[in-house]
């Protein structure tokens, strides 16, 4: 199978004043097309940093990140932006919808940025997705008029409208109640199955691991293991870093 994401020996350091804070320490990870991968770990384990590198919104201090065959470390800012626009869809923990645009316009926005689809095609695709995520009747509403779950559905539709190969979701259920969270995960899973879109989502909620095809567990910026959803659920708890375990 083809690797849609290939992360090899990636290090990422952040500098805070004179201190260098390592966020990722030699993480390697391959993700195959069509996977529904969860990145698990406690706060500060490096989940969001890894997602940022995969999402091309950040570059590694060291190591290689390949997205759909593109080596991101050699790409310019413009090329990275274009790669995000055409290859990756984003679902944010806080939904991050444009407040002044309607539901329809929010979903249509990436297509307008792509400038490739005609108005009719854009409408067809947006309406199909509105149906798909079950918010057709809210097409003309503003985000402020929707519930949290409805907003996340809009975010999912926006992430999928460009038919990306990869969708990244950062704690997609963190701001939702458990029922709504479950519904959103059901929706993402169904889209993964029907659209064959690769989903990578970060979470520290053990309940959502069961949806994943596999779970990558991080601790202190290092990859602890990569296990099946069942194994992850069985193991439960917060994983510890390999270094900590060996010591």
């Amino acid at each position, binding site marked *: 199978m083809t690797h849609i994401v290939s992360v090899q020996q990636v290090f990422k350091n952040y500098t805070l004043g004179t201190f260098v804070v390592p966020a990722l320490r030699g993480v390697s990870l391959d993700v195959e097309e069509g996977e529904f991968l969860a990145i698990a770990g406690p706060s500060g384990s490096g989940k969001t940093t890894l997602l940022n590198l995969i999402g091309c919104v950040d570059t590694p201090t060291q190591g290689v990140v390949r997205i759909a065959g593109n080596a991101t470390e050699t790409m310019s800012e413009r090329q990275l932006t274009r790669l995000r626009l055409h290859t990756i869809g984003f679902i944010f923990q806080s939904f991050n919808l444009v407040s002044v645009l309607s539901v329809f316009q929010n979903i249509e926005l990436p297509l307008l940025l792509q400038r*490739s689809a005609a108005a009719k095609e854009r409408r067809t695709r947006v309406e199909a997705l509105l149906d798909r995520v079950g918010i057709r009747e809210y097409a003309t509403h503003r985000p402020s008029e929707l519930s949290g779950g409805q907003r996340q559905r809009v975010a999912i539709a926006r992430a999928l409208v460009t038919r990306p190969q990869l969708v990244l979701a950062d704690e997609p259920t963190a701001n939702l109640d458990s029922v709504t969270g479950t519904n959103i995960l059901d929706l993402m899973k169904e889209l993964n199955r029907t659209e064959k879109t690769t989903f990578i989502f970060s979470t520290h909620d053990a309940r959502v691991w069961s949806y994943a095809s596999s779970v990558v567990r991080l601790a202190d910026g290092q990859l602890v293991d990569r296990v099946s959803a069942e194994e992850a659920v069985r193991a439960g708890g917060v994983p510890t870093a390999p270094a900590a375990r060996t010591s």
Partner: protein
Amino acid sequence: MRGYVDTLKVILLIAFRNLFASRLKTLIVGGIILFGSMLVVVGTALVDSVDASMSRSIIGSVAGHIQVYNAKSADELAVMGSFQMEGADLEQINDFKTMRQALLTVPNVKAVVPMGLSGAMVPAGNSVDVVLEKLRDLIRRQQAGEDVLAGIESQKDHVRQIVSVLGADMANVGKLLTDKAVSPEELAAIRRATAPTFWGEFDKDPLGTLEFLENRIAPLASDADMLFLRYVGTDLEAFAQSFDRMKIVDCTTVPPGKRGFLFSKWMYEEQVKLKTAHRLDVIRDAILKRGKKIATDPDLQRLVKQNSTEVKEIMLQLDAQQTAMFRAKLQKELGSQESDTSKLLAEFFRVDDGNILRRSKFFYDELAPSLTLYRVRVGDNLTIKAFTKSGYVQSVNLRVYGTFTFEGLEDSHLAGNLNLMDMVSFRELYGFSTPERDREIQAIKAAAGLKEIDRDNAEAELFGAKPSESEPATPVAAATVRDADAVLRGLAGRSKRERREDQTYDPAQLGQGVVLNAAVIVKNARLIPQTMKDIEAAGTKAGLTLKAIDWQKASGLVGQFVTMIRYVLYISVLIIFAVALVVINNALVMTTLERIAEIGTLRAVGAQRRFLLGMLLVEALAVGGLFGGLGSALGAGIVAILRMVGIPAFNDIFYFFFSGPRLHPGLSITNVAIALTIVLVVSGASSIYPALIAMRVSPRQAMQSDE
């Protein structure tokens, strides 16, 4: 292409919705822009209109489009707006003919009018002098055998009337102030002149008595004053052709080939007219033309007070018969039994808003025909004495042919304080040195036996060798004096001849000879800057050192007015838009910082930096365009209303600037274009810093922030 349009649509949508979402901020920013653009439209429209009106006034009255003078002059030429009596110190241009020919080679030059500007004080004589002169004339005629006894008696009565008016005036001064305020010599003179014996003995020595009256009584009538005349010497025919706003008001222009003087109508009314009558005119015109009220206008109240307290000017003109006539008419008009004519006149001139028009009509219908309304009348000879450039006094007798005005500038002091005279007389008064004059002076010197001597040897040359104490001085001068007498006799005879001959001159003299400057009328006013360069080049080619200045500079301080106003406007606009730039910038920075998450999200989902730049630029330009457009429309509306109503010229200076009693400003597309351009540039500039902030926002921000 279609994709770009759709993207632009979404940018516009986001921009407008963001603006609407921050209504208060948008309104504050918009308000400043609206005011600024309105100010630019109204301000530039007004300044342009004043500029156009003023250029009409200045170009059409005396300056022409371009003034040309000698580049070697000590001063800069200022045909208007100079507060000096004399003109600027200009180097003469010796041959107008050469200059004119050179200037006419420039294709854009239509006409060249020779000029010279100078000033003089002309003693006008007082009303007592006028009466005494009449009496002296009658006595001479009587001595020559004419039967003019009745006339002499009438004039004697008039003089007695004058003396009694002056006596009463003096008594009033004594009462109001103190007796010490009255000079004992003046009091003695009045007492002598009012004594019956004085008039009883008049016939014994009429000329001696007149001398006493002229020397001791006439100076007591303080209505004599000087006429301050600024005049332009020119080719009057060419002047009238080139300055088509010039219109003759009274009588005629100076006929070609004749020497003569034309009063400006404004000056004629202001300085030559009986002051009481002039003040009455001013009050009436202020009420009729400018809608002012005596009851509320302090200036008019002051004029009314002056008129009612200064009736002496009229009383001195009246003989006994006229005094009685005035008394009867005024008693009837005022319904008064007062027997003192001066008190009746004072009452008559104490006008109010209700009776001013009736009183003014009564004055001109009933009283004015018996009065000398103008101290110098058309047809009189005016003796103008002026200091020449060399410092000696030169005088010329000029006939006053009429009065003129510049159409549309009738009430303007700036346009009205210049009078006109023929160029030949001007040259004489200015004391130009010409080859003819030099030859004449040499001839006089030769006839008088004058020779130049050294300062060191002056005493020896004039008085011979130093005489011994005992030896009397050699009477060298005696022969010279005799020679000088002969010369002076010859000159006297010549002067008489000249006085007659000087009233005419050869018109060819106008086209040649000395001038100080020249007005140039051009065919195309837009080409003035180039024409000025061409004129100077043509002068150089002809061996002349010419300097050309445009009408604005030629008009001196007056011409700088519009430039000054323009600078004030530009500085105001600059300040307003500098404030606007800071305010818009701050508002956009705040908005940008509030939208970091949104901008991060847009970057994360694939928006390039230029998309964000466009979004912020559109927001700024939308506010600028919308409110700038509204402000411009509002400004255009204000200008339209002002155009309809007209802005009144509230004093004579503005009368000149407005080229008439009201300014009806016009709006050009340029005024609106300037406003919109400034607004859009400022709006665009103010979005640069916020755009830089926005472009630095990392897509990571989207991952880190809450909605």
